[in-house]
């Protein structure tokens, strides 16, 4: 069972009773709906809207109800709902199989189900049970989950600025004033670390998942290094967005896990982390190897490894073992300030 990352709501007869275009000022929120929306938000589950309606009027109504700010990329138009959902999924950049769609009309649910079979369909009549569904209950609720919507909101602002930015990408990145911090995982980070291993698919080199307890053990293990990565810029924090797990063996150090949240996809963080690990290996005079498990979604990490000079040692189906001879370790780029905390110092 997949956990749901985003609930997409219909409006008429779903969020409120009645039809906005017919009943206008008389539409009332359905009972309990505000509590559901607020609780999902607290759990870090994102929300959006796919409604066939008059956009301006519907947004004004949501504002009146004090709900407008809960929805990312609301799609209020006359298109097929499946196409609206596709747009939301592309904008947020998450998997279709992590989406739930709530609508009172069987016709709309069927249309979405036929076009997007991975979407979980929920009848508006069943919303009173929604919060109890296992899919809607993340294993942990961390600070990052509670702030998730706000972090996506800052992302929307960044994206708007990025799109209107004239000039090379590097200049845009420099304008963000990014600060990246790499630190050892502490007890407080364990829930988020587990969440990252479970939630991250695209920017993930192996997809290995670890439980809270396993991560806690690895954190204390003398043969492992477990690090968490935090990113912020002038628009706010991205939160804890990356995780590194190294296994330090006699013959070599192995990168077991290197992952980043897809929210930092366009920030060039992958190469920075790889170069950090390469510097670390170089200073410790060890051979550096990396495990990789190919999926249909993590090609970007494969390319990142290859372009960082990793060479295949062994390939076994989807499993690849890489080695890097550390002949070319790049310095960190100018556009981000990298801080490494409480671990072997790495020159910048």
């Amino acid at each position: 069972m997949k956990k749901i990352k985003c609930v997409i709501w219909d409006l008429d007869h779903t969020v409120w009773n009645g039809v906005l275009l017919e009943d206008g000022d008389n539409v009332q929120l359905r009972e309990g709906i505000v509590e559901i929306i607020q609780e999902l938000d607290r759990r870090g589950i994102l929300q959006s809207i796919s409604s066939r309606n008059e956009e301006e009027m519907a947004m004004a109504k949501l504002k009146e109800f004090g709900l407008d700010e809960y929805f990312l990329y609301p799609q209020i138009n006359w298109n097929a709902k499946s196409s609206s959902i596709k747009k939301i999924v592309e904008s947020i950049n998450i998997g279709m199989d992590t989406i739930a769609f709530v609508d009172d009309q069987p016709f709309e649910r069927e249309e979405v189900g036929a076009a997007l079979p991975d979407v979980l369909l929920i009848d508006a009549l069943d919303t009173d049970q929604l919060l109890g569904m296992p899919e809607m209950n993340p294993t942990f609720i961390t600070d990052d989950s509670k702030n998730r919507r706000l972090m996506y909101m800052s992302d929307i602002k960044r994206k708007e600025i990025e799109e209107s930015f004239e000039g090379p990408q590097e200049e845009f990145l420099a304008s963000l004033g990014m600060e990246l911090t790499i630190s050892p995982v502490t007890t407080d980070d364990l829930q988020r670390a587990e969440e990252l291993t479970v939630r991250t698919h695209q920017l993930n080199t192996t997809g290995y998942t670890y439980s809270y307890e396993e991560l806690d053990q690895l954190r204390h293990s003398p043969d492992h290094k477990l690090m968490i990565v935090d990113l912020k810029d002038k628009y706010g924090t991205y939160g804890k967005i990356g995780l590194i797990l190294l296994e330090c063996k006699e013959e070599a150090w192995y990168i077991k896990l290197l992952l980043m949240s897809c929210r930092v996809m366009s920030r060039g963080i992958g190469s920075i982390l790889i170069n950090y690990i390469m510097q670390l290996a170089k200073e410790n005079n060890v051979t550096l190897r990396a495990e990789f498990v190919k999926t249909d979604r993590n090609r970007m990490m494969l390319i990142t490894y290859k372009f960082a000079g990793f060479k295949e040692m062994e390939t076994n189906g989807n499993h690849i073992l890489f080695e890097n001879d550390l002949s070319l370790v790049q310095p960190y780029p100018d556009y981000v300030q990298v801080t490494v905390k409480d671990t072997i110092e790495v020159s910048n």
Partner: protein
Amino acid sequence: MENAIKAKVKKFLSRFFKSQEIADDQDIFSLGFVNSLFAMQLVLFLEKEFDIMVDTEDLDLENFRTIDLITSFVEKKQA
């Protein structure tokens, strides 16, 4: 026809290396930090623009180090 491919590659690269004039045989990976995003965009650009598939075994720095190398890589894949 060498120049059609080369011209497109140059145009693409100019978005990333705006300030520098890059020679055809200059190592673009030595010009500064090559980030994961650039790498991905380069690969996707080549695939889309020239209708080729960049396979795992093609993802070798030696295929992408210079404008000349990228051009001959595309020619080889199109052949």
